[in-house]
């Protein structure tokens, strides 16, 4: 366990350090969610005028829930880019040779992703509050919202690490982020599920991201729904993605 933590701490610290000293890595992960928030909450706020749209905290809060979870997911995805970059540069091979407990590498990258999202999530929350977001949930409910974000971040980071370790090239970037992007946008992003029509309604009904999004919106509105289900799904997702990432690491080990 000590060796695991030693490796995880080293990789995590390096991940954070690289992020903080490299604007090219840090800025996109901050700018993208902020602009999504501005574009969705600002540009689409008229959507809240359509009949039967009755989310009490308002459209900014409605969109904040999505952007908050999206930033958590993409905080994880960006960690995969770092893994791929390390393989491209040859650093990852040296890391594999020297790490006394290699599974700590995955934990380190995931910890780095979580730290990075802590910064992004805080900034987005401040931006939303400055934009006039109304929050009706109490402290416990908001803690639940943060918990959802952490779990989403972990699942996404493990997914991204797995893909990056299987493919070991920066060209894996599209493959890392596309599925995450699509799953998130196939949820009820702009209007509640019951206002969706056509094929998107059918897909969104069975999309796990819908449960997480509805849970997050419910927590902000002080009327929690599907929170337990969301955490169960995320816990299951974490377990599956941990196996996926470990297999990716094994693939990288075999490749030398």
């Amino acid at each position, binding site marked *: 366990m000590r060796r695991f933590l030693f490796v995880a701490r080293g990789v995590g610290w390096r991940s954070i350090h690289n992020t903080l000293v490299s604007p*090219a890595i840090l*800025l*996109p992960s901050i*700018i*993208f969610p902020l*602009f*999504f928030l*501005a*574009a969705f*909450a*600002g*540009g*689409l*706020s*008229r*959507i809240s*005028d*359509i*009949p039967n*749209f009755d989310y009490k905290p308002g459209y900014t809060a409605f969109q904040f829930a999505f952007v908050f979870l999206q930033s958590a997911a993409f905080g994880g995805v960006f960690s995969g880019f770092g893994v791929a970059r390390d393989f491209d540069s040859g650093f990852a091979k040296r890391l594999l040779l020297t790490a006394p407990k290699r599974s700590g590498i995955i934990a380190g990258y995931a910890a780095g992703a979580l730290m990075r999202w802590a910064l992004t999530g805080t900034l987005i929350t401040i931006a939303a509050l400055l934009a006039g977001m109304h929050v009706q949930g109490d402290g416990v409910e908001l803690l639940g919202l943060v918990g959802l974000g952490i779990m989403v971040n972990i699942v996404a980071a493990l997914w991204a690490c797995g893909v990056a370790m299987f493919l070991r090239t920066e*060209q894996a970037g*599209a493959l890392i982020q*596309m599925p995450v992007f*699509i799953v998130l*946008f*196939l949820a*009820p*992003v*702009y*209007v509640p599920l019951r*206002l*969706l*029509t*056509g*094929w*998107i309604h059918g897909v969104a009904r069975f999309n796990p991201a819908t449960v997480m999004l509805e849970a997050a919106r419910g927590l902000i509105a002080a009327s929690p729904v599907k929170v337990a289900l969301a955490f169960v799904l995320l816990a299951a997702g974490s377990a599956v993605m941990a196996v996926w990432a470990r297999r990716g690491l094994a693939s990288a080990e075999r490749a030398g």
Partner: protein
Amino acid sequence: MSSSGAGEAAVSATGVPASSATGVQILDPRLLDQIGVVARRSIMRTLRQRGLLVFPLLFPLILFAINGSSLGAATKIHGFPPVSYRDFVLAVPFIQGALFVAITAGTDLARDIESGFFDRLALTPLRGGALLAGQLGGSVVVACVQSALYLLVGIASGVGIASGVGGALVLLALSVLIAFGFAGLGVLLALRFGTGEAVQGFFPLLFVTVFLSSSSLPRNLIKVHWFREVATYNPVSYLIEGIRSLIITGWDGEALAMGFGFALLLSLLTLGFASTAMKTRLVRT
């Protein structure tokens, strides 16, 4: 080396007077050959990198499919044009595709600069203008293919083109002109910064210009004042509205004039600055 640098040396090597490089010699068959070779290389390189080709083609279509359905309820907003949301939003993939063309063109050229290939080219009789035109020519071919694909997918998904077949052709011309302008921007960024990472770093900024425009709702229906102001001053709104007018309105002279006007302005500005940046980089070489 003179201020024209390798570009002028190259001209001398081909026996063409340097002073005529931007004049009547534009029709010099050797120049056209050079442009053709660079353009062919640009196209082949893009075709060989499927990741670079497929992602830019598919991503705007995926967003179109998702947003076209997810935001269907927006048509219930009082004052929304009497068309389906899919009709309304089809203009957006053309602009997103143009942004990807910009990044691809810029990244390709930046890679040539980083790998030293650009320096070696500068020592050959190839002219700077031919390199620029060829690189952009390759981007235009990619833009033609993706614009045609977006239009066909739109029509296949049930979108009607209000301006008819002639309007569809004008739409393709406008979208290719927009892509040309953005490709010029990508090339300019590559020449100015010289690294692919820097070019790609601009992508979020370019993408944001689409979000902060009338891409999702008509400007008069944007409720938040600052957003409506930004969208009004954002040229991308007029590029989108030019294309959109052909799809949902028919022949709207004002929207088309604004669309073509801004696309032309973007092309001229980026081409002018890129030419200057090319000369500067050749001097450095």
